[in-house]
């Protein structure tokens, strides 16, 4: 058990290291000279100033040295550097400022998706091929085939414009405007994100559950005279949720980096929209910082998911 935890931890660190190297290398491959980001391309360039800036940002050092310095700051001082573009703006401050928006969206999306997906999946397995299963299956298929941003636009049109119940764009921070205002601005984007997830999760629960319902222990549970509800949720759901948990973990990680489009549609001050603007303005340190942050969270979430297995299936605890 301890040994396994140690192994997981070692793997986590190794993965993070690999992620940092790859991220660092990739941002170097972005076309264009970072100097262009720092000095407006139109201005007359004094070679001396350019040299001075290169010196200041360490752009002249070779890649290995630059990576070492950057990693050093990141690990020892939790400092991901200072933006080239908005001089003086620290990357970590930007992340801190924007991560609550994206994290909340991702979390809400997953919770909403699970809230609907689990009962739908369980029902689908229980009533396999009956009319209600066919109906929900068709519904899930539709939800799966609508792209996020289309769903976002449709939801915005219906609830914000037609019914005028919710604001169409913008974000209210809990700390400033309170929970209710915050929910009003977050519910539409979160729902738009949740639709696809719900469809994926419910399919997964349904198919795993169908397999579990064939197990002998389900028959023994039924032979005890327990209500179907009880058999489904107390006996069948847990053994049917291992692949669900994996996918929830992976998708949650993906949502953290993948809310870019939704943040654009609803004009939300999240990590995604910052990443987008950083890329277009060649703000390399910002891109690096955000990417490595998202990747880190992703890797940590997936490690937690691995640990969740142990909670779900007591048999793993021994090996």
């Amino acid at each position, binding site marked *: 058990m301890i040994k396994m935890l140690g192994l997981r931890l070692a793997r986590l660190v190794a993965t993070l290291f690999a992620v940092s190297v790859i991220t660092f290398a990739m941002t170097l491959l972005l076309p264009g000279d970072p100097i262009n980001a720092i000095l407006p391309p139109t201005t007359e360039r004094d070679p001396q100033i350019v040299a001075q800036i290169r010196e200041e940002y360490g752009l002249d050092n070779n890649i290995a040295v630059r990576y070492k310095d950057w990693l050093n700051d990141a690990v020892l001082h939790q400092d991901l550097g200072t933006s080239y573009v908005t001089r003086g703006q620290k990357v970590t401050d930007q992340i801190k400022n924007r991560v609550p928006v994206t994290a909340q969206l991702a979390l809400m999306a997953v919770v909403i998706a699970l809230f609907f997906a689990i009962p739908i999946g369980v029902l689908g397995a229980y009533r396999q091929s009956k009319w209600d299963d066919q109906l929900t299956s068709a519904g899930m298929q539709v939800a799966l085939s609508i792209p996020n941003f289309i769903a976002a636009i449709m939801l915005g049109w219906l609830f914000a414009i037609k019914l005028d119940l919710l604001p169409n764009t913008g974000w209210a921070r809990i700390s400033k405007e309170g929970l209710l205002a915050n929910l009003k601005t977050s519910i539409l984007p979160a729902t738009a994100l949740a639709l696809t997830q719900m469809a994926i999760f419910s399919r997964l629960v349904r198919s795993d559950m169908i397999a579990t319902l064939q197990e002998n*222990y389900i*028959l023994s549970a*039924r032979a005890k*005279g327990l209500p179907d509800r009880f058999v489904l949720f*107390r*006996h069948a759901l847990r053994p049917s949720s291992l692949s669900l948990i994996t996918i929830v973990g992976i998708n949650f990680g993906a949502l953290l980096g993948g809310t870019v489009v939704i943040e654009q549609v609803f004009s939300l001050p999240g990590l995604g929209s910052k990443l987008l603007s950083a890329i277009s303005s060649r703000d390399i340190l910002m891109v690096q910082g955000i990417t490595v942050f998202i990747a880190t969270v992703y890797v940590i979430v997936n490690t937690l998911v691995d640990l969740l297995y142990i909670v779900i299936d*007591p048999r793993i605890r021994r090996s």
Partner: protein
Amino acid sequence: MPTAGADATRLTRSEKTEPLLVVEDLKTYFQTPNGLVKAVDGVTLSVERGKTLGVVGESGSGKTVLSRSIMRLNTAGNVITHGSVTYNGEDLLAKSPRQMRDIWGVEMAMVFQDPMTSLNPVVKVGRQMTEHIRHHLGVSKKDARDTAVELLRSVRIPEPEARFDNYPHEMSGGMRQRVCIAIALACGPKMLFADEPTTALDVTVQHQILNLLGQQQVDRFMTMIMVTHDLGVVAGRTDEIAVMYAGKVVEKAPTKQLFADMRHPYTEALLRSIPKIDDPKHTKLSAISGRPPDLINPPSGCAFSPRCPYAQPQCFTDTPPLGAAPTPGHQYACWFPVGSPEGKDAWDKNLEAKRPQTMAAAGLVNATEELAAGAVVGG
């Protein structure tokens, strides 16, 4: 006492004399892409209160399907059931699944074939024991726990309090089957089905479990159906035995009568195939030659005819009915019964003609699947 079995002294007279379970012409067919599988094909039997019926047959003869059909536990979507099952005067086949839930666990319970897979691996043993006690008897968590610990003690699980919090994988196979028995007994059922309760277990553990079942059956005055492929298992532990072949009962008799005077060649073959105690664990002595029959297209005439050492031309065309033997309660379905002059003639004829099935039964050649598979014609 929530776990007490039916009390014999409280039964009315009619309850005492009427069999607890009456099964009439029960048929369970499965629709499959290859055709209709006639897993149970017209079974009639009855079990009196407090008695034990042994159902014996080879793998695939329909024992499990029969017991699940009686309990209405066949869940497959492709199942068709006909006939009648009367339990305690009530028609079970007419009941809705909802109504059956009040019978399962409380009136009828089942111990399954494989204790390794019939407990939920992610739920603690204790909860698997108490959940139906609480559901059916509406007792508090604490009382249910006490009852469960008591049950674990009664099925001789050491340190029951500690075992209560175990997961199934923390127990041995024999221990798990004891837990399964305790679970089945928990709500004091009047009728217990034991579907090959020891097949998956070690030989030494098998005896302990069988003795435990017998003891509990007597203590609780339960009525029991014990399913097995091993005549040896039911020999000293049942009041009556029904031998199944290809979904049909081919011989039925009080246990003593059956062993004293068995009539059906298949019963005889089963007896011959009982492993002896001092045999090495895995040798299957004198297995019955030939394969179990195809249940979609069963052989014409007597279903056992392709494998039967006694088979005569009539056997391949006419299906023998289940008829009464001279002794009361004894029935068999055979044209040339064991121990009768006709049977002796048939045997001698086949031996002379060197019918491989007969040679194998006589111990002159070894029985193999291939041996009899092709050779169909007798006499």
